């Protein structure tokens, strides 16, 4: 019996051979009722385990991990293949971090069955030892492909990539962290070494697509959405590295109401998305694989108490 993946590869080959104009996406059928994969994601949750207090200058009453968990459970009840991801900066922002150093966050994220998170700059706020202590509570991979953590306390808690397979589709996920020098105190990051984000991304895509045979690539990025200067950022990454399908971003706390799409060097779309901060929003992308193409349906949820 031919696997669905093989079937689609053959179909893709045939379609490519025709050289006829054709289009994808079902404009007449805008809702992906039965997605192959549903991706839920957050970024920069910043220890916001409880909703914002009533005297918060912004977002009073919004957020809260128990309500987020409830939403995730509801989605899982109807969708079989759910990926739950976070783009980093789980640490720092409320007294929960000052008392527990991120342990409670990572423990509850494990209970919620997060599949992976990226390493944000605030993950270094209690040094590499503090990270390692909290990371023992994480029952899911913490990803950073451009940080060398060898000979540091972080070495057994950070990995470069994660591959998930659903219905024969292989999803390659890798993490990118921000340049540490100038952003994180040197005493805190110790012997962790940063490597160029774009160069690393290129190598990760080559390996994930070529060696690991992934069909779809997700970058969990803590680089930031966009800068006016030359620092690596999600928009720049999308335009300069081919083969990334989706960048789930963080760091700049950007509330993107819609995904931003950039043409990558091979002329294909790379989708960029980011959900502000503090778990105020949860992003959702429903993916449906069809011949030569992946349909995406995007939505976001605002976690409020009303």
């Amino acid at each position: 019996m031919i696997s669905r993946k093989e079937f689609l590869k053959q179909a893709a080959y045939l379609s490519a051979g025709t050289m006829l104009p054709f289009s994808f996406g079902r404009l007449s059928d805008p809702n992906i009722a039965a997605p192959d994969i549903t991706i839920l994601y957050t970024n920069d949750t910043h220890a916001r385990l409880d909703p914002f207090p009533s005297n918060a200058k912004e977002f009073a009453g919004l957020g809260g991990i128990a309500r987020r968990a409830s939403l995730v459970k509801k989605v899982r009840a109807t969708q079989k293949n759910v990926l739950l991801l976070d783009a980093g900066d789980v640490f720092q922002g409320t007294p929960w971090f000052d008392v527990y150093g991120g342990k409670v966050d990572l423990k509850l994220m494990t209970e919620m069955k997060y599949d992976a998170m990226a390493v944000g700059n605030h993950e270094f706020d209690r040094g590499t030892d503090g990270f390692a202590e909290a990371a023992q509570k994480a029952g899911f991979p913490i990803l950073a492909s451009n940080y060398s953590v060898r000979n540091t306390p972080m070495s057994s808690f950070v990995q470069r990539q994660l591959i998930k397979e659903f219905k024969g589709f292989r999803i390659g996920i890798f993490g990118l962290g921000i340049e540490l020098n100038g952003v994180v105190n040197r005493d805190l990051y110790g012997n962790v070494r940063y490597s160029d984000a774009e160069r690393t991304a290129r190598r990760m895509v080559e390996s994930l697509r070529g060696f690991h045979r992934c069909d779809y690539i997700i970058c969990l990025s803590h680089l930031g959405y966009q800068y006016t200067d030359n620092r690596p950022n999600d928009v720049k990454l999308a335009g300069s590295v081919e083969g990334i399908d989706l960048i789930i971003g963080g760091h700049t706390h950007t509330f993107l109401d819609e995904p931003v799409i950039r043409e990558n060097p091979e002329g294909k779309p790379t989708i960029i998305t980011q959900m502000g901060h503090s778990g105020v929003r949860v992003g959702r992308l429903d993916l449906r694989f069809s011949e030569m193409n992946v349909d995406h349906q995007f939505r976001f949820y605002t976690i409020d108490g009303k």
Partner: protein
Amino acid sequence: MLTRFFVVLITSVLFAGCTLFRPATVEEEKVPLEYPGPDTEIASLLDAHRSQLNRLMNVEIATVKDTLRFGKPESVLGNLVSDAIRSRAANELGAYVNMGIIGESSFKLFFEPGRLTLGEMYEFMPYKNHLVVLTLEGQRVTELINQVAEIGGAPVSGVRFRIDNENTARGVLVNSEVIDPHKKYRVATSSWAADGGDVFPALWEAEERVDLNISVRDVFVDYFRGKSEIYDITDGRIR
């Protein structure tokens, strides 16, 4: 419980070898979606850790008598925090400090009447910045005050002025005196503002900088503890 969501469908169109793509916003709507309240399992796990949190953080440091907010041109909280860093900097340094300045974007809470707790102070100022004293020439101080005026006011201490219709500072007095362009002034601020964060470029090229080994959050905790009761009083330093 209600959750709103927006739906956007992304489609790719491949045309004779070249790919065109754009988000096709075929549907964008607010859809109410009922879902259960907070997940009980996660909520109880969180609550299991709450007594330790409360023991350390639910500690009263002052009583707030009115609703206190940040705002422009001046505000009760803006005045309090800038006075706090200026007076603490003077104490730590053992020298007169002319000004205090800290942007209000660093602060995440306003105060409601009642107990002010240590936990609230961690949310009030969630960042790990420390106290810095910069030395600026008088002409830089004038630039700084104009940068404050341009944005309609900011938390400052040691200064009085009014903002005219063109958002320029008028009648500027620092410690009740007109600014001497060649005199040197000590300005207390946060490490973040001094490092190039915040919105006051005049702070970024100081002649001298002293980093004090004290977090600005601790400065506020100690300052509010010392006040014990906090009222809604402003003094017209920016008009």
